[in-house]
């Protein structure tokens, strides 16, 4: 498994564990995306999906620094 594939799998599992009442709007899509829609974006490696992965990984890496 490449590192990129592993990262995507991790983020998908994290999204799967999201609470059902959560929705996020990101980028210029005029709609809020629920858990399933966010997962679809990541699975399809769309621009939004790649951004979600980037945001999640940046957050995870910041956790270890104690920045968050």
């Amino acid at each position, binding site marked *: 498994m490449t590192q990129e594939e592993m990262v995507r799998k991790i983020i998908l599992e994290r999204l799967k564990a*999201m*609470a*059902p*009442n*959560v*929705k*996020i*709007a*990101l*980028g*210029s*899509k*005029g*709609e*809020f995306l*629920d858990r399933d829609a966010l997962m679809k974006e990541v699975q399809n490696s769309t621009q939004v999906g790649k*951004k979600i992965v980037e*945001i*999640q990984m*940046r*957050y*995870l890496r*910041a956790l270890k620094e104690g920045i*968050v």
Partner: protein
Amino acid sequence: MKTLFVRPSHDDVVSYLYFYSKELVEESRKRNFETLNKEKKDATQKIISDIILKNEPAFIMFNGHGSPNIICGHNDGFIIIKGNNHGLLKNKIVYSLSCSSAAGIGKAVADKNTAFIGYTDEFALGMDVDCQASIHRDKRARLFLEPSNLLVKSLLKGNSAVEAVEKAKRMMKENISRLRTEHSDDAKDYLPFLFNNYLILEVLGEKNARLQA
């Protein structure tokens, strides 16, 4: 001194920005700024360009979608385009609550007479689907938009651009801390996105620019 608020409301996301920015229009009026409010169908390039040229507002807030080189208005029509009419924003304080516009337009307009406050990447907005019908009850969206409102209120009070951004970031950090310690199922899910917004908010150009009513 004049302020201009650009407030489209054509989709679910900008409706939230529209709702939250209403308070800022009122605050601007309360502080005796001559307040120009262009909302919904009036948030178009023609109307906004004319208003800016005719009135020379000292402060402009854009609510809407965007990209590094574009700020959008009603129905995602282009209002400001880098390389086309971004010069309209010169010699002002501008706050653009739209994705990524600081990265392109912001850099292009920022100079010693212009402050551009905005986001260098995609702005994220969280919401609680259980409050979908009533934005004012959505405590999760509030965590994302209240810091943005505080930023503008700080400017209207006479704080400098950099002070206003610092206050907004301080509130974002407090909201992050609150979510970190909340024992609800959903709190942790908003954290990466709120942290994202904290990282990407920037002020470019004249950081000490301030408004005086």
